[in-house]
């Protein structure tokens, strides 16, 4: 296992540096080519997202100079870059990659995008041949692990942003959001974001009211909605099912009597007020009315934090899955490491067997087909019995750290030549295991 991984992420490096390292999609193939052309690197690929830039490689000796590659490729001085880099080798590199693919290393733990981004990077590198045998296995496993984490834990199941919590709550009240109307009061960034989320979930139309009418028109145009004069607010508000309010008013603009009016006009159909203004726009008294549901910024924030806490609990389960998967992957790779030795051993003994048969054949004279078969069976039987223990020992050792020593001893004992088994034979042994 000669995997190496180097990179920066949102925790290790500031945005300015990540910006300089980011590689646009169109230039990813070239970056991968440069990487594989770098000394000591057999296979390599680059993952570049807004929160991370990472290089994963399978190297000839496990000590390739990936830092050097980064300095050269991005024309950065070591003092600019090195303090922000993290670097993992072998097992730790595998673990890190599994964590990244499973979204445990993300800024928002459990977000679903990262897996898609890693898959894209993998596809790009594979298309140009930068990823073949070892990395191919590593990434296939990483995707399987990510899938397992997603299905066995609830790490990505709850909403962890204000806007998505608002959508979730709206759905708890209205079921489907199709055909629901949204009213934005006070054209701020946050309310715009929440409205965008609601519209994406099927809300029908949008009204916008702002103290400055022009700004209301501007925002309404963005959503193909309707601007409302601020003075008409109370007359039109009941047309909305969901109200997002974020004005800079010093006092509550919605009071109990307004709520009662709205409900009367709406025949008591429920209304959902998302109050992200500080000080609050909706008086707590109004929130007590049957059919009026008010969530202020603290309530939303609290829901977000409790979801984040749920996620971190789930993330612990996910870490346990990752640990066991890393062990499994390592064991599998180690088994593959001993395969060439097993093949060499089989070849070596087969050569001896053939040579011995040829040597005595002259002395035995003409043999009947039955005798030929008997001799074949006898000699093969002996060889198999002799080979059985060393092969078993090799396979057992493969799962432990002493693998290299055992491989070395077997090679010396049987005086095996230092050659790699051909891929066909490798597969043959692989299936025999």
């Amino acid at each position: 296992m000669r995997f190496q991984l180097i990179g920066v992420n949102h925790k290790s490096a500031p945005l300015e540096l990540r910006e300089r390292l980011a590689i646009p999609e169109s230039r990813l193939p070239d970056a991968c080519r440069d990487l594989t052309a770098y000394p000591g690197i057999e296979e390599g690929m680059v993952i570049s997202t807004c929160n991370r830039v990472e290089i994963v490689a399978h190297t000839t000796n496990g000590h390739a100079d990936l830092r050097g590659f980064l300095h050269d490729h991005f024309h950065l001085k070591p003092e600019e870059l090195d303090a922000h880099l993290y670097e993992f080798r072998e097992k730790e590199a595998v673990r890190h990659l599994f964590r990244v693919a499973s979204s445990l290393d993300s800024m928002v733990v459990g977000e679903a995008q990262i897996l898609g981004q890693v898959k894209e990077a993998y596809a790009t590198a594979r298309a140009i041949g930068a990823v073949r045998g070892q990395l191919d296995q590593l990434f296939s496993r990483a995707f399987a692990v990510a899938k397992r984490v997603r299905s066995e834990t609830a790490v990505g199941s709850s909403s962890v942003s204000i806007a998505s919590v608002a959508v979730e709550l709206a759905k708890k009240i209205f079921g489907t959001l199709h055909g629901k109307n949204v009213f934005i009061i006070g054209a701020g960034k946050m309310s715009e974001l929440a409205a965008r989320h609601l519209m994406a979930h099927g809300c029908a139309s949008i009204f916008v009211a702002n103290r400055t009418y022009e700004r209301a028109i501007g925002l309404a145009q963005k959503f193909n909605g309707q601007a409302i004069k601020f003075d008409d607010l109370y007359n039109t508000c009941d047309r909305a099912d969901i109200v997002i309010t974020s004005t800079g008013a010093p006092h509550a603009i919605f009071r109990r009597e307004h709520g009662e009016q709205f409900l009367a006009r709406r025949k008591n159909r429920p209304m959902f007020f998302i109050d992200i203004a500080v000080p609050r726009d909706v008086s707590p008294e109004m929130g007590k009315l049957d059919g009026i549901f008010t969530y202020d910024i603290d309530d939303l924030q609290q829901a977000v934090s409790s979801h984040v806490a749920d996620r971190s609990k789930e993330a612990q389960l996910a870490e346990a899955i990752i640990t066991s998967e890393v062990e499994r992957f390592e064991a599998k790779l180690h088994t593959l490491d001993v395969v060439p030795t097993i093949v060499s051993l089989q070849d070596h003994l087969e050569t001896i067997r053939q040579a011995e048969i040829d040597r005595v054949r002259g002395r035995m004279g003409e043999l009947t087909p039955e005798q030929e078969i008997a001799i074949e069976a006898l000699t093969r039987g002996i060889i198999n019995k002799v080979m059985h223990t060393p092969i078993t020992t090799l396979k057992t050792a493969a799962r432990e750290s002493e693998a290299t020593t055992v491989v070395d001893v077997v090679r010396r004992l049987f005086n095996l030549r230092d050659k790699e088994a051909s891929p066909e034979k490798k597969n043959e042994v692989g299936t025999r295991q």
Partner: protein
Amino acid sequence: MSLLWLRFALACYFIGLVYAFVALTRTSDLFSRIALHAASLGMVFHFVSLTELFLSGQVVWASVHNGESLLAFLSMSFFMLIYAIYQTTSPGVVVFPVVFFLTFVAALDEQPVLLTQYVSNKGWLAAHIFLIFIGYASLLVSFGASLLYLLQERRLKAKRSTSLISFLPALEVIDQIGYRSLLLGFPFMTLGLLTGSVVAISTYGRLDFLDPKILLSVLMWAVYMLMVFTRWNSGWRGRRAAFLATFAFVAALAAWAANYFSAIHRFAAS
């Protein structure tokens, strides 16, 4: 034989009963699926039981136990209909215990408890029973929905973590379930009372409005109508609707209990 099938059905409904209690404390998709399948299987046994009773030619719908069995089956059918439309098992929290109780009582013994008065108008009597029972079943579902509505409303107002008792569907979905069953049940209840009056007049020659059965039935119907009206006119829901629904449900229970006091609607072991 019919009783044996009914007892099988009861065993299945028992799982539903357990679900009803568990669902209030925690959410389990697996358990709600199990409860649903058990309830479906129970309905099959129940259907076989009712069919056998019908085919045996000894059908006496005007017997308390057969009536309870039929009402339980109709309530369960209502529940399944709601599941087919809304994909939610949550009304089971209210429906399952009632269905279990009704089936349990019906499955106790074979002793027919019959209407004391001989009724000559068999067709009208059968129509009365069927119609009124559909009305009862929809009232039960509507009552259940109003309780679930309150529960969900409280939860949303309390702003607690959404992971708690999340088996509840969205507030508007619960509201729709309640309102639709209310609307569906109303004509049945009305027609059921009318056919009952026809049977009473043809048997006794007049309607005794002071008889507790008739008095309570009319009261129940009046509350029912008030519920439909307030909902249609001013969209009453939440606490006020739940209050009315509870009142109508209690009135229905009282009307049922009146069988023991009523002179005209009395049942006794034969």
